[in-house]
């Protein structure tokens, strides 16, 4: 499937995307398109370029070779990286308030509801610096419920979550993709969702991936 013919139905696609760091090619000729309902699992060893790829997709890392194209400019993207982007001195609710304010508008009621969804009811008015690492990640993830974004770019979203948290988050990923959203995530954990086909994208250092057809590059 060529990316140009399906451009209209894609949320976004890459063409010949490449990344080079310190004269080392991390990946090259990366062609893939992300459609509504897709869940892409980026795999690879440490240093394979998973985070860099996510940042290029988000537009945080410069793209020197190739392209990342969003056909619809209004496509909303949420990126949750290693650094959570939370202000330690502010409360969980205040953090959500400004983070959501970047993409639109939210009421206090909605923010409380989003925090309840990630299991943080009762911690709304606690300063983030008093929360545990797992709770901080939950605050950052609460934004996914608050801003209705089509594309979620998640870098190691299971880090420091407890067992129940991981189960809950897989459930959110499931719901989001079934509702027509798309998720691109990195994780060293296996993801198993009952109703969603997980598409694998494996990065091997220096490998040229060529055209990643949805059939060829995917597995369930």
């Amino acid at each position, binding site marked *: 499937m060529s990316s140009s013919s399906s451009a209209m139905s894609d949320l976004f696609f890459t063409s010949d995307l490449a990344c080079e760091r310190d004269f080392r090619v991390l990946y090259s000729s990366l062609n893939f398109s992300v459609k509504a309902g897709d869940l892409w699992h980026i795999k690879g060893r440490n240093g394979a370029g998973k985070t860099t790829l996510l940042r290029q997709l988000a537009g945080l890392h410069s793209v020197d070779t190739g392209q990342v194209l969003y056909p619809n400019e209004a496509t909303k993207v949420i990126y949750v*990286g290693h650094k959570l982007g*939370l202000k330690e001195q502010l409360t969980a609710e205040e953090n959500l308030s400004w983070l959501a*304010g970047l993409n639109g508008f939210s009421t206090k009621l909605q923010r409380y509801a989003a925090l309840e969804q990630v299991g943080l009811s009762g911690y709304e008015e606690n300063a983030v610096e008093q929360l545990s690492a797992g709770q901080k990640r939950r605050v950052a993830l609460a934004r996914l419920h608050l801003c209705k974004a089509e594309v979620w770019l998640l870098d190691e979203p299971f880090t420091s979550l407890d067992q129940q948290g991981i189960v809950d988050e897989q459930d959110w990923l499931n719901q989001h993709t079934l509702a027509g959203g798309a998720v691109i995530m990195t994780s060293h954990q296996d993801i198993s969702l009952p109703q969603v086909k997980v598409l694998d994208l494996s990065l091997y250092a220096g490998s040229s991936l060529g055209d990643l057809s949805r059939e060829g590059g995917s597995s369930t």
Partner: protein
Amino acid sequence: MIGFMLTIIRRDLLLVARQPAEMINPLVFFVLVIAMFPLGISPEASILSQVAAGVIWVAAMLATLLSLELLFKLDHDDGSLEQLLLAPYPSWCLVLSKVFVHWLVSGLPLILISPFIAMMLFLPDHAIPTLMLSLLLGTPTLSLLGAIGAALVTGVRGGGMLLTLLILPLYVPVIIFGASSVAAAAQGMPVDGYMALLAAMLVFALMITPWAAGSALKL
């Protein structure tokens, strides 16, 4: 776009309210540096009143520089800068909002306290309105120009010294016209020309620097 800028301004003001030291430190620095001059030079009123204009302006510049390093650094370190840059708005909105808060927190208090500092240095009373007006026009320019340097050294370890080296040359015209205006007022000469030039520099900085610093942040 306005909503985006208000979100940043609200957030940064809230952060300052939680950590008032950020606001008080430059002010204390400003007062302490100026208090050193009578000790170092001479407590004579005739000598102090001659150097007062320059001393106040240089101290204001140093106080601004002191707080500039953290303008984007804290946001960079905790990852919130990424989120701000990802928002679907031009990055100059982000820079302008952050500089506005920076000036409100580090520039405005200096202007408000400057009449007392002027009295301490025996600056003639009739020069005080000029001093305040020149600081009002000049300190936002200092914050705006500094934003370019702050954006460039974001993510550089120990960027404070580098920031000073980058930015000080850009501050030269502001210092010259700021300090001369006060000196001219102290001698009873007209200051309209100085004020016009300071205002022109502010307008120029307003047009150029948010865009330049925004581009530097994306590097």
